[in-house]
């Protein structure tokens, strides 16, 4: 027995050692309680959007050089759960891909500020023989997901793609089966541009997809994986997933009538032209501007305006850093950097935080 157990123990220790060293490399995952209790150290807790998680991981690491005394613990448990934890005051900040509704904010113990920290485009990915570069518009996309356009050689798709040899192949729309900010951005866009969609499915992090049309997959990785496997499949996912899986994505027709790819530049362009109100709860789908990508959204950090935990100063300082210097790290993660004008407005908002 001993002979068989020893290698197992050794292997377990080795695995632990590897995973531990990984954890210490990304402070987002490490819940280093000993460090936080050390004098001069502070642990700031956050929870919410999975979309933001890679950005936070990178920022927390880079922020060590700015202020080594602040530690972060971020749990990517979903936007909905992030909002809930903020309302229950179990975290210092929440993060959400959809702005909070008036109803949920009414139940909060204090005024909640929305601070946009990242923005990104949602790519329309597809799998066709020889993978031609496609152009699509909002009405066609809505038709595909509503089930009125069912074949790739449909005249509406052909009209947008002159010269492309479209196969006679059924379209299989793939959507997110889990509640998701990506679904919110996607359905927000279709609601904005297509009346039939606005009157039936509407927008939300989870919606009632038209019955019997297409399939659902869990997570952006699931959608990307499904589309890659399924000839004739179409889906939507953050640009990063399309790039990682080397799946082609469509150029979408924007409000100005141009066909634009979801690259970070075109999302930044959309942010610059989007109408952003003073509470920063905005939608940037179908933004005007020649270069704007139409299916894009921001993700927000949610904090209380009146900070009572004694961590307000450090939290605000970090957020100010994240929306200015931190934005330089965004493009490497396929996020779009916030335009200067938006950065300035957000800094003013953060100045109103009291602690």
């Amino acid at each position, binding site marked *: 027995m001993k002979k068989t157990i020893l290698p197992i123990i050794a292997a377990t220790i080795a695995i632990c050692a590897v995973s531990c060293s990984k954890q210490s490399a990304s402070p987002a995952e490490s819940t280093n309680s000993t460090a936080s209790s050390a004098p001069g150290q502070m642990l700031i807790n956050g929870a919410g959007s999975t979309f933001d998680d890679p950005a936070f991981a990178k920022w927390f690491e880079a922020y060590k050089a700015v202020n080594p005394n602040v530690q972060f613990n971020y749990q990517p*448990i*979903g*936007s*909905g*759960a992030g*909002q*809930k934890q903020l309302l229950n005051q179990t975290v210092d900040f929440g993060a959400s891909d959809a702005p909070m*509704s008036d109803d*949920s904010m009414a139940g909060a113990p204090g005024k909640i500020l929305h601070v946009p920290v990242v923005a990104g485009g949602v790519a329309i990915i597809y799998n066709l023989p020889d993978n031609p570069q496609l152009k699509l518009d909002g009405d066609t996309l809505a038709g595909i997901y509503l089930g009125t356009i069912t074949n790739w050689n449909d005249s509406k798709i052909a009209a947008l793609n002159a010269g492309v040899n479209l196969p006679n192949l*059924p379209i*299989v729309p793939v959507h997110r*089966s*889990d*509640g*998701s*900010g990506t679904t919110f951005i996607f359905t927000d866009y279709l609601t904005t541009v297509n009346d039939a969609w606005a009157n039936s*499915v*509407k*927008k*939300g*992090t*989870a*919606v*009632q*997809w038209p*019955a*019997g*049309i*297409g*399939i*659902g*997959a*869990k997570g952006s990785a*699931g959608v990307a*994986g*499904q589309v890659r*496997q*399924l000839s004739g*499949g179409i889906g939507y996912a953050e640009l990063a997933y399309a790039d990682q899986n080397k799946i082609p994505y469509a150029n979408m027709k924007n409000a100005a009538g141009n066909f634009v790819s979801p690259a970070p530049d075109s999302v930044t362009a959309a942010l610059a032209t989007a109408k952003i109100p003073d509470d920063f709860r905005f939608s940037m789908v179908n933004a005007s501007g020649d270069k704007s990508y139409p299916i894009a959204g921001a993700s927000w950090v949610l904090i209380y305006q009146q900070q009572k935990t004694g961590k307000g100063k450090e939290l605000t300082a970090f957020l100010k850093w994240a929306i200015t210097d931190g934005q330089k790290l965004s493009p490497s993660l396929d996020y779009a950097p916030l335009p200067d004008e938006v950065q300035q407005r957000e800094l003013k908002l953060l100045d109103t935080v009291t602690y």
Partner: protein
Amino acid sequence: MNVTGNNVKKNSSGVSHFGDDAFKWLTLLMACSVFVLIALIGFELFNGARPSIHKFGFHFLISSSWDPVNDVFGALPYIFGTLVTSFIALLIAVPLSIATAVFLTELAPLWLRQPLIMFIELLAAIPSVILGFWGFYVMVPWLHDHVYPFLRSGGGFLPFFQGPDHGPCILSAGIILAVMIIPIITSVSREILRSVPGLQREAAYALGATRWEVTRIAVLSYAKRGLFGAVILGLGRALGETMAVTMLIGNAPYIGASVFAAGQTLASVIANEFTEATDPMYSGALFEVGLVLLGVTLLVNALARLLLVTFAGPRMKPQN
């Protein structure tokens, strides 16, 4: 209870039975904790589901609408998906598992038994998310390319094998569930067949029975209660299995005859939607789905036991 309590005090030999008593109460406490746990889970689910129960009532069980945007919820397609995938899993797994168990106990040469048993137990140890991963990238594309077209051409006249097939579907989920419950049913069945007394077999051989007849009359019929129990254990796992099913079922609510259609189960809808359910009515509906799952599991188990008593006769002592 009082009798043993008195024994401690009145023990004439002077030897204290305190240890025995403490042991008895301690184990009783442990045994009770299971009931308390189930009751608490049920209560908490009910509590969380209250907004949804209050609004939809019985309609929740018979409605097919699941619309988080307009706060209208019904769980019928999910109940359907759960039952159908589990049924398909049993259809595949039961003959396979029991045949394997019979081979292992009755027919296999001794040198082959141990390695086979080891592999079956290894299969049981694979986490469901890994099976789901494998199913998603390997099994489903293979089924989609080779098996499903064959089923369609051979059995296309049946309503089960009609309709479009995209790969992930009710049948795919049922097959992965079968893979998951085969080791459980096989292991338990093997233990049960092993516990069939050798005298049974010898008696049958003495009557001139062939090997098949011995297995059928002396072994299987003797052990049928226990085997039924093994199947129920497998069914229990199939009903509640979440991760692999979520990855392979296609996640679209469906009620109909085609096994090529994407479906959804009670467990998969919770796994899918819980993290983003902000609204109390929405999360209440998901809690109620959990409550329904608990109810369906209990009901199916109760029905199975009833079936057992009706058909296998009320033998009081199963042989395990």
